[in-house]
């Protein structure tokens, strides 16, 4: 934090060593969050049956919308705080912390009130049916009642990371995941508190509250350079505006991702049934494990590629790109093998219902057809970010899950037999087109590198 802004080892140390050093921490954090994603669904699927599992599907885009607004405050505040801490300006940093605290509460409460008042129409629009609505509602009501705590928990984690405590932020994440794994069965199952799907929501909120109180203990400690104390809780228009202007971009990207899930849920429901919706949420979670591995790799690659590009070391830029693509492809190929050859075993984590299993296996196989290519597509998108080409980066990251997918989703089922397969096939099809786009953009960039290296 107060060290060097740009570690020059990025230009000298061995590339493979650097990638390991920068990527492994993010990969670990990512794995923790994908485990968290799986656990709730697994307990609910086994304990309460396939309709309860399908009932969870429309709650995810809603929870992600809430998370998107939370990340807006979190990213904005932590970016500003780390700039101030870099200048040892603790007074301003604490004012930002106070403002972020209040903003988290305001955003958390407003979102909860708005969504609770229109909960049924929202869930029906997001892919719930008459059969699954009661589960979705029962789960979501409790999640929304705890929404403020969720926002504070994620907000403080972002702050801890920027305040030089990435280790403590990681511990808080792991604590939440472990607690949730323990509390879930106790709250859900008949041999415990027997609260059903409500129990899963309560367990989630409770685990976050425990972590939140631990975070609060750290952040109220007067010996911390950055701590909560009286006098910082005044909303200042200027700080609020700055936080929002930084956070708006990640927020919009996250909202785009939620929109797609809503489109998919609706298409699956109108051409298929609740089982198809439930199957997609399972498939999404399984593929997400491998996707997060690539995301972790990408986070590790960014500073290395960025620095060497800035230092005009194009040979090293290409080296780190090649190495990251190699690992990403390996991770996605592993995912492909599991989805194509062992889909039933992956599905058994979530359910034993034969009809749902059949649906999952079919969708999972189709969805994973070109997984091995997706790794490099994601890496290329992030690579453009790292070398300061935000337009291309944003285009590529939207292309796979948004720009191509939505038209395909609307178009394929109109001629495909059966129509439901059209929905499943739109996913690998948009993956393929966006991979080709990525390769074309990269090829153009490599040509430019060659020219620039020769000029040097």
């Amino acid at each position, binding site marked *: 934090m107060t060290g060097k802004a740009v570690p020059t080892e990025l230009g000298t140390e061995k590339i493979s060593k650097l990638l390991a050093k920068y990527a492994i921490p993010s990969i670990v954090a990512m794995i923790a969050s994908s485990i968290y994603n799986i656990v709730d669904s697994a307990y609910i699927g086994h304990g309460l049956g396939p309709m309860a599992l399908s009932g969870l599907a429309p709650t995810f885009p809603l929870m992600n919308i809430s998370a998107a607004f939370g990340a807006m405050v979190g990213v904005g505040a932590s970016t500003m705080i*780390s700039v101030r801490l870099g200048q040892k300006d603790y007074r301003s940093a604490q004012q930002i912390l106070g403002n972020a605290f209040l903003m988290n509460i305001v955003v958390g409460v407003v979102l909860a009130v708005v969504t609770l008042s229109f909960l049924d129409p929202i869930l029906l629009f997001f892919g719930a049916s008459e059969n699954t609505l009661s589960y979705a509602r029962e789960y979501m009501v409790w999640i929304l009642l705890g929404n403020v705590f969720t926002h504070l928990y994620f907000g403080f984690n972002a702050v801890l990371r920027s305040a030089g405590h990435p280790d403590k932020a990681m511990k808080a994440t792991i604590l939440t995941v472990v607690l949730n794994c323990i509390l879930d069965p106790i709250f859900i199952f008949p041999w415990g508190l027997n609260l059903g799907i409500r129990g899963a929501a309560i367990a989630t909120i409770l685990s976050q509250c425990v972590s939140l109180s631990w975070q609060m203990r750290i952040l109220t400690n007067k010996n911390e350079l950055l701590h909560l104390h009286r006098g910082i809780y005044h909303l200042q228009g200027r700080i609020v505006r700055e936080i929002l202007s930084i956070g708006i971009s990640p927020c919009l990207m996250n909202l785009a991702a939620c929109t797609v899930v809503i489109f998919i849920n609706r298409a699956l429901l109108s051409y298929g049934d609740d089982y198809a919706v439930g199957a997609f949420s399972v498939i999404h979670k399984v593929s997400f494990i491998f996707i997060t591995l690539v995301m972790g790799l990408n986070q590790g690659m960014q500073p290395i590629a960025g620095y060497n590009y800035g230092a005009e070391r194009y040979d090293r830029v290409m080296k780190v790109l090649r190495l990251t693509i190699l690992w990403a492809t390996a991770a996605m190929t592993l995912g492909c093998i599991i989805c194509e050859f062992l889909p039933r075993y992956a599905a058994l984590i979530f359910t034993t219902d034969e009809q749902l299993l059949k649906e999952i296996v079919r969708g999972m196989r189709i969805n994973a057809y070109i997984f091995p290519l997706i790794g490099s597509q994601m890496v290329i998108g992030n690579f453009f970010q790292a070398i300061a080409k*935000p337009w291309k980066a944003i285009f590529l990251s939207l292309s796979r899950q948004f720009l191509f997918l939505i038209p395909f989703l609307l178009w394929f089922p109109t001629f495909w037999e059966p129509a439901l397969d059209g929905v499943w096939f739109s996913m690998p099809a948009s993956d393929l087109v966006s991979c080709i786009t990525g390769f074309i953009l990269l090829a153009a960039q490599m040509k430019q590198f060659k020219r620039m290296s020769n000029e040097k």
Partner: protein
Amino acid sequence: MILTISRQLGSGGRSASRIIAEHYGINVYDKKLIELAAEQSGLHRQFFEQADEKVSRSFRSFLFGSRSATGHGAASGSPGSPLSGDALFKVQSDVIRDIAQREPSCIILGRCADYILRDVPQHISIFITADIDDRVRRYAEHDGLSDDEARTRLEKGDARRASYYNYYTQRRWGDAANYDLCLNSSLLGIEGTAELIIHFVDHYQAAQQ
């Protein structure tokens, strides 16, 4: 004695600094800071030039993250990226602190130096303004522009400096409370302004002893 001088475009602050520096036989750090920052970080100077005293306010930066001098810091999704405006600012501010430690007497122009060195004891911060007509005339002459053109550029340039300063310091650019001495160079002319500052510095140093 370290002088940090901030100035409106066309106020003659740079020329005044040169006169003061000559008088005391000390260095003025201006564009040289960029070279030093590039040297220290190993990054090409072009990135620092793009980021120099501006924060992008375009539509793109609104959509994809405004917080980066060159529009690619927060936009790159990773505020920690070595090419982000935030990281480049940190490099430059480290360079300014280094200079302050190495050269106990020098002048640093702009670049939030008054804020960066706020805790350095032997440090006077100065803000120089001038009447708008004088500024337009000087700027138009220097760059061979029409008055109207010069006026728009002045306004845009000052707005850029202000938003850069306000973003990185949470203070307000040109707010008298931030500076030890604020003056209008239209009243005494550039040389007169420089003389007054020299006077001020001598007085302060005498009072210190």
